[in-house]
């Protein structure tokens, strides 16, 4: 099943003809990357070498952030309604991914402004939002202050207080381990407005340091970190800081709810960081395997190496598929984002940590060298990426968010089909998404997960297609196995004792399986709804043809659900063929200078020069 590689051309990547599905967000990302310049060229401001140099000296990426501002990245942090360019979160997803492919530290340092502003987009009045929009577009940094020295995930234990004072508040306390606490001009705080605390005892405040007298606040020293070394991870203390009533975001007492809703949106977007990091790791691994000779041949000629690389590619594509569905959900299915975002924020960083580890073993010594191989980029990716699973709600917090909804998720999945919204809008990449409406967000999902709810129907549909197109038979069988695993999982979830207050270790394992099943349902939905258009596209169409990426993704998901290989000789052979073919697609993407993605997106360095 090996297809001839398309000829390697030296033409500028943007001249590659594109037909079929052309997605505006992928096109935007390609333009962004091109305009940032070739990252392999040390004269480029946002180059690989520059990012590594800053990391070595723990220096904040000021110059690179300035270049990103010049390009206009901050405009995409501001909704169009408030004067910005953000009308489709897929644009932001692809821009973050593109920047993260060059350097996670810079992307986290710059992107934090979006996170800090998000509670305002979700909960503030239009005048406040428009005012902040203007500041952000002009380059002001905004940070998000939830965490305190003694309180991390448990945001409702925070001790920073906002006492009513006149019409405004008097702030006292500290926020610590805050990205850009020192460099940011504004900070969104979660503050205790009622001494008793509790879910209604907190409020969100947007504080502008420029409005405070110098003695009212103090920044804390930079914290030295293992990853994202150049970033400004610090803190801030407030002493009797008086702020006006306009700092309150939303209503008093709504802070916890507002933060939890905002975090749903940011958690859907966080995987974009992981996708960028995985692209970089995979590119380095492919490059190494093609250059490295041992026992008289290239590393890439060893079947095990090819399989490892192809599986890494499949993992990346499945992460892309489920992340894309999650980001589209911000617009098309916000009422279920409490489930969808928790699943991807847990799953994607954890899978990508695994990919980086595994490809690291392939690179061997070169994955840990500080400078000698590719400027020491690999060890930096591994260090930087660890952080993605920790901030913005760590893995356990997101797993717990799923566990706490297990019974209603099971009820909705196993119950009668009285609520199954059509999800064509969500899954069809050609469809334009509705405007994001924060009012649609809900702290828990009333109808469970409609995304997972599509699984039985998708399995049946693929199987019917396979009757007519035998090339799909392997993917259809894997889909069937996933459907069976999901039904069993939901039956077990239904039996989970209602002791939500102290979830067992087994529940957390089940939450991982749940996230994997949801990812599988997202892959199937996306393929079924977008395959026709995507297949017609010349450069990535082959990934979609005969369900190639779908089959590989399902295989990777099933392996993680504990499905043993080897009992089914025919299926295992079909899988081998799929991964062989996927390896060829990986090499083609690499050689032509394309992002490792389901849709075409040329990268600025073009075809590899080394």
């Amino acid at each position, binding site marked *: 099943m090996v297809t001839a590689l398309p000829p390697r051309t030296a033409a500028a990547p943007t001249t590659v003809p594109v037909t079929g599905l052309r997605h505006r967000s992928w096109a935007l990302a390609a333009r962004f990357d091109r305009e940032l310049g070739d990252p392999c060229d040390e004269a480029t401001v946002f180059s690989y070498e520059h990012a590594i140099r800053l990391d070595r000296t723990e220096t904040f990426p000021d110059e690179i952030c300035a270049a990103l501002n010049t390009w206009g990245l901050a405009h995409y942090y501001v909704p169009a309604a408030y004067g910005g360019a953000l009308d489709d979160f897929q644009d932001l997803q692809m821009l973050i991914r593109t920047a993260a492919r060059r350097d996670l530290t810079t992307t986290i340092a710059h992107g934090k402004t979006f996170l800090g502003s998000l509670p305002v987009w979700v909960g503030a009045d239009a005048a406040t939002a428009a005012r902040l929009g203007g500041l952000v577009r002009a380059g002001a940094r905004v940070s998000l202050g939830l965490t305190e020295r003694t309180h991390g995930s448990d945001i409702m234990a925070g001790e920073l207080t906002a006492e009513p004072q006149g019409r405004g508040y008097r702030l006292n306390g500290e926020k610590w381990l805050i990205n850009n606490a020192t460099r940011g001009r504004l900070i969104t705080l979660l503050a205790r407005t009622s001494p008793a605390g509790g879910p*209604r005892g907190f409020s969100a405040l947007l504080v502008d340091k420029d409005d405070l007298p110098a003695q009212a606040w103090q920044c804390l020293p930079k914290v030295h970190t293992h990853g994202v070394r150049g970033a400004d991870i610090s803190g801030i203390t407030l002493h009797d800081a008086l702020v006006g009533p306009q700092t309150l975001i939303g209503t008093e007492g709504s802070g916890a709810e507002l933060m939890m809703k905002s975090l749903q949106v940011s958690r859907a977007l966080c995987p974009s960081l992981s996708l960028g990091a995985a692209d970089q790791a995979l590119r380095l691994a492919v490059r190494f395997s093609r250059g490295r000779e041992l026992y008289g041949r290239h590393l890439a000629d060893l079947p095990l190496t090819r399989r490892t690389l192809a599986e890494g590619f499949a993992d990346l594509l499945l992460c892309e598929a489920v992340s894309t569905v999650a980001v589209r959900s911000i617009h098309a299915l916000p009422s279920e984002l409490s489930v969808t975002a928790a699943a991807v924020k847990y799953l994607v960083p954890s899978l990508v940590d695994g990919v980086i580890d595994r490809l690291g073993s392939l690179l061997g010594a070169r994955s840990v060298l500080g400078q000698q191989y590719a400027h020491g980029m690999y060890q930096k990716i591994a260090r930087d990426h660890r952080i993605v699973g920790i901030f913005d709600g760590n893995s356990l917090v997101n797993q717990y968010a799923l566990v*706490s909804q297990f*019974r*209603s998720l099971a009820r909705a999945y196993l119950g009668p089909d009285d609520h199954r919204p059509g999800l064509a809008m969500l899954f069809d990449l050609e469809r334009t998404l509705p405007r994001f409406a924060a009012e649609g967000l809900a702290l828990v999902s009333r109808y469970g997960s409609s995304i997972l709810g599509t699984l039985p129907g998708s399995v049946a549909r693929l199987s019917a297609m396979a009757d007519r197109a035998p090339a799909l038979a392997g993917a259809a069988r894997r889909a069937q196995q996933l459907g069976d695993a999901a039904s069993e999982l939901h039956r077990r979830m239904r039996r989970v004792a*209602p002791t939500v207050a102290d979830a067992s270790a087994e529940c957390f394992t089940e939450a991982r399986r749940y996230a994997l099943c949801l990812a599988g349902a997202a892959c199937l939905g996306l393929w079924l709804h977008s395959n026709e258009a995507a297949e017609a596209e010349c450069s990535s169409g082959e990934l979609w043809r005969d369900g190639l990426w779908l089959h590989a993704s399902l295989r990777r998901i099933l392996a993680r659900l504990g499905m043993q290989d080897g009992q089914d000789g025919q299926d295992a052979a079909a899988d081998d063929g799929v991964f062989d073919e996927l390896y060829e697609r990986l090499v083609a993407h690499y050689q032509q200078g394309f992002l490792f993605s389901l849709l075409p997106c040329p990268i600025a360095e073009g075809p590899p020069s080394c």
Partner: protein
Amino acid sequence: MVVSGTSPQEREFRSWLLERLGQYLRRSVEEIDTGVPFAEYGLDSVAALSLFGDIEDDFGLYLEPTVAWDYPTVDSLARHLAAECVRRVTGPLGEER
């Protein structure tokens, strides 16, 4: 604990809530004071949200997920649920589902 001046419906909600919390928290019903916030018994705010699904399941009352945040004790929540029932039967909007 029976509080005087409560409607039968409110008492029904109260005993239902006590039983449910007992299960959630793995405590006996006698240990739970109906005037003390759920959080003090270790029911975290995320877990408290799942009460709304149980209320819908058992009583067909669809409320905001944050109902247990706004009425954080057995007494206040039972009173609110009883009032909601009355409102839905007699109110202009009627039953939601």
